[in-house]
């Protein structure tokens, strides 16, 4: 091996002198190692001899359990600080694998006690199969007092089963504002994956919808924990270490409980929406979708059967109609047409059109709702009495694309930007839109339908309410605001939410005032369509609307009142008050109910009555 020899020859050989130096260094290394061994032995002594008895106790009683202490979730308050939702203890049944490795017997016994399906219980256990075995698995949420007592008395027959007290939601006003506020549910695998860094764990409750979901990070607080020493049956012996949870922050809403309740009560049994907005800030005072969600059904997970029932319910309780319901705006859209006509100088307040109950144009007759006709009519009366022919004439002259420009400046055809999920944008057609969507040319006749808010036009109640606010507040389009401020658990303000101005309405103050006059007349003159919203002492201005529902020809001849519900028209009413210095805008939509003036306006009136309850002139009997 000549190569090795050559290499070996290069190796530095050690002479005597160097050996002494090396020996010295090895001695140092030996000393270092011995020091480290001494550290280890000392540590062994400390753990096994000095503290040994303590650890024996821990290992004998066998078990340290880590118990999480859920942080109290932040409260949800109304604009005056009244509590809408707080927490109360829920008594939950949990089971720990470590204490009883075989679940079959226990589950069988429990299903008898709870009267619940064995497969439901087993599936919660399976669901949690990835968890460490010391982590309790939730079997049943919110058990009643009788079950609780029974379980506590029979715990020897139920190894591994414990009752855990967990704070969860207490809905002080029942289902009030349930679409807006949302509900909690157990965190699922995807959510857990997404929130891994934030100390969430299987079994935790998390906001699933509405404010509870969107403001989860504010509300949920920070968990505390306890190291518990437990005995063989899983019963607590003592706490070894603990850290208190940090409660979540409170959310103060812009919602006024009184208005919200009034709105929901007025809508009882009806499908629809009520929106009340502070016109100068965009703050929502009421946001009600009817019928409300029944929150008790969602606690502990909604069953497929109930879910299916809701899906088939003709009143569609699962849909938040304030932001997800899209309806033809009907005559409320005449506000847009009027603004466009004035703004494009197609009409003046003095311009007169003649209504003989319809308009013959493009080889067809387009009817006015008042078949007898309005006669010669100008803007202010046309708005008050909602003359269709007048607005056909304006619409033809303005054109579909110009109408859309004004509609969009009033916030239609776009999401309002409210902090809620799944908001629908509505629809305002243009000729380009039709070309793109249907590859067809725009028909002139379609402009007539558009001008009175029918045809392709779609809007949500929230959009119409904000449009109304924009009309009367000097042309400002605000982001609809639902959160007033975020407060810490002690009640101090952490963040005050400021109104956000999103845009301005096309057209002059002068033109808007002309329209406002017409809307005041609608409520306050004899022939106005919205007389049922008139209030003593407060001047209300408003616009009714009746959104036609597409129906088959065979129903044409039947009077509205005798139609099956699903073919009836949607009733709209949008209004503001006081007319001299508007503070509040209220929009009501009632699905499949008939005319705006007769159905929707009285509901808006109730909301206004509640809002102005201290300022109304009390009518005295003569």
């Amino acid at each position, binding site marked *: 091996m000549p190569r090795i020899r050559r290499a070996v020859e290069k190796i530095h050989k050690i002479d005597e002198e160097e050996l002494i130096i090396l020996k010295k260094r090895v001695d140092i290394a030996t000393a270092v190692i011995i020091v480290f061994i001494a550290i280890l032995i000392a540590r062994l002594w400390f753990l096994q001899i000095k503290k040994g008895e303590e650890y024996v106790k821990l290992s004998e009683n066998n078990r340290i359990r880590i118990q999480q202490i859920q942080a109290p979730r932040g409260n949800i308050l109304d604009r005056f600080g009244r509590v809408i939702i707080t927490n109360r203890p829920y008594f939950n049944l949990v089971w720990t694998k470590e204490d009883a490795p075989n679940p079959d017997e226990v589950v069988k016994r429990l299903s008898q006690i709870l009267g619940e399906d064995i497969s439901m219980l087993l599936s919660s256990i399976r669901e949690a199969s990835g968890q460490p*075995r010391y982590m309790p698995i939730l079997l049943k949420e919110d058990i009643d007092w009788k079950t609780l007592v029974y379980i506590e008395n029979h715990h020897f027959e139920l190894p591994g089963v414990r009752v855990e007290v967990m704070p969860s939601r207490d809905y002080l006003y029942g289902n009030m504002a349930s679409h807006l506020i949302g509900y909690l549910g157990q965190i699922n695998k995807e959510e857990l994956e997404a929130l891994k860094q934030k100390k969430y764990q299987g079994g935790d409750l998390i906001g699933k919808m509405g404010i509870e979901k969107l403001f989860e990070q504010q509300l949920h607080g920070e968990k505390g924990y306890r190291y518990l020493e437990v005995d063989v049956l899983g019963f607590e012996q003592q706490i070894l270490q603990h850290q208190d949870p940090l409660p979540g922050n409170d959310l103060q809403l812009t919602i006024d409980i009184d208005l919200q309740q009034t709105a929901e009560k007025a809508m009882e049994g009806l499908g629809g929406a009520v929106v009340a907005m502070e016109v100068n800030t965009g703050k929502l005072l009421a946001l009600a979708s009817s019928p409300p969600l029944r929150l008790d059904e969602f606690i502990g997970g909604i069953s497929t059967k109930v879910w299916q029932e809701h899906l088939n319910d003709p009143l569609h309780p699962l849909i938040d109609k304030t932001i997800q319901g899209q309806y033809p705006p009907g005559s409320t859209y005449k506000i847009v047409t009027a603004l466009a006509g004035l703004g494009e100088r197609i009409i003046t307040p003095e311009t007169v059109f003649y209504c003989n109950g319809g308009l013959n144009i493009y080889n067809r007759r387009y009817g006015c709702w008042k078949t007898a006709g309005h006669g010669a009519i100008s803007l202010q009366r046309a708005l008050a009495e909602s003359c269709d022919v007048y607005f056909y004439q304006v619409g033809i002259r303005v054109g579909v694309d110009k109408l859309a420009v004004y509609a969009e400046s009033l916030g239609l055809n776009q999401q309002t930007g409210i902090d809620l999920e799944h908001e629908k944008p509505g629809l305002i057609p243009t000729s380009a839109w039709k070309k793109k969507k249907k590859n067809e040319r725009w028909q002139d006749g379609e402009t007539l339908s558009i001008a009175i808010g029918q045809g392709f036009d779609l809007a949500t109640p929230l959009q119409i309410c904000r449009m109304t606010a924009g009309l009367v507040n000097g042309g400002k389009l605000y982001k609809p605001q639902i959160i007033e401020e975020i407060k810490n658990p002690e009640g101090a303000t952490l963040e005050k939410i400021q109104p956000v101005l999103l845009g301005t309405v096309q057209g002059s103050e002068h033109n808007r005032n002309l329209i406002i006059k017409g809307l005041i007349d609608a409520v306050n003159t004899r022939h106005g369509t919205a007389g049922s919203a008139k209030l003593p002492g407060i001047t209300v201005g408003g616009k009714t609307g009746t959104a036609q529902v597409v129906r088959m020809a065979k129903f044409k001849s039947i009077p509205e009142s005798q139609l099956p519900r699903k073919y009836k028209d949607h009733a709209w009413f949008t209004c503001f008050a006081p007319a001299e210095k508007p503070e509040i805008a209220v929009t009501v939509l009632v699905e499949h109910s008939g005319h705006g003036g007769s159905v929707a306006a009285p509901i808006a009136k109730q909301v206004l009555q509640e809002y102005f309850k201290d300022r109304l002139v009390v009518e005295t009997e003569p």
Partner: protein
Amino acid sequence: MFRFDRRLLQHFDWIILIWLALIATMCLMNLYSAVYPDKPPGTPVYIKQLYYFIMGMGLVLAIISMDYRVFMTWNYPIYVIICLMLLYALLFGKNLSGAQRWINLGFINLQPSEPAKLVLVITLASFYSRKDTGKGFTLKELAVPIALTALPFLLILKQPDLGTALMLGFIFVSMTLFVKLKWQTLNILLAVCASLIPIAWKFILKPYQRQRIETFLNPEADPLKTGYHIMQSKIAVGSGLTFGKGYLEGTQGHLDFLPERHTDFAFSIWAEEFGFVGSALFLSIYFFLILWGLNSAVSSRDKFGTLLCIGVVSLIFWQAFINLAMVMGLLPVVGMPLPLFSYGGSSLLTTMAGMGILISVRMRRYQVPG
């Protein structure tokens, strides 16, 4: 080729061999207890570990039959091969629990980062034995060994395997300090290291690694995961008392409280079942082997042999110390096996190869080179 020299047998290092057998027996006993009484499907870990020990003995025999000085000529080819393997593992390796560490060789899943430690020892020993003048190294002269360490260090860190990467650092520091540095060099290096710590904290450590260290410094911060391991391990060790609970009688381990109990936390089972006396005995036997290895360093007649021994000893010693300190709750949880005692083929074979080198150096102590 290989001319048998009677003197080789005369000077054979029986001590290491006997000690290896002793520790192997304890290891297998302990592994048996770690999985007792579960009956998982497949070959039990203690049987697999026995196979690895037998393979390891083959490796020892192969290494001692060669003159360790051949590693001087082979060292750069081996170094290049191991770096390529690390790169391969990083790019195409098997992903186990989030780290690209493994290469499938058919009969064994090899973790190239384990032999990489030994290769680094050989590489540094070879470099220093050629360059050392006894006057101490300057920073400029250290550039090459730093680079030689940095390459595999970064490849392993990227897997990510912080424990093994740190080990390379420990080997480098131990061997470099042994060959002597100029004071100025030492000071500069210390200053650089100190300034690197915050950078490493922020950019190099993965969130879970940071969390482990944070948990250790403040166990209340995240009691649910890492803190739980430390606590349970301490209970296992502490509850052993003076004489232990008896073989196969440990409760912490058998009741699933202890995580990783056949790999990184193997010693806590031993400590629980054999108590302070058994543990102290174990540590004495274990560290006697390390000190004996250190002693081999001065038995060599050439610097290469000396430095090889220093490297191998530092490799085993630091792993053992960090592992034991972790099990006893003195250091944060890092993935670090106890050499010869934790279950795992790559680590065991690497350690056995290191033992082979120690024996080889000692048995050739009267073969003056040249």
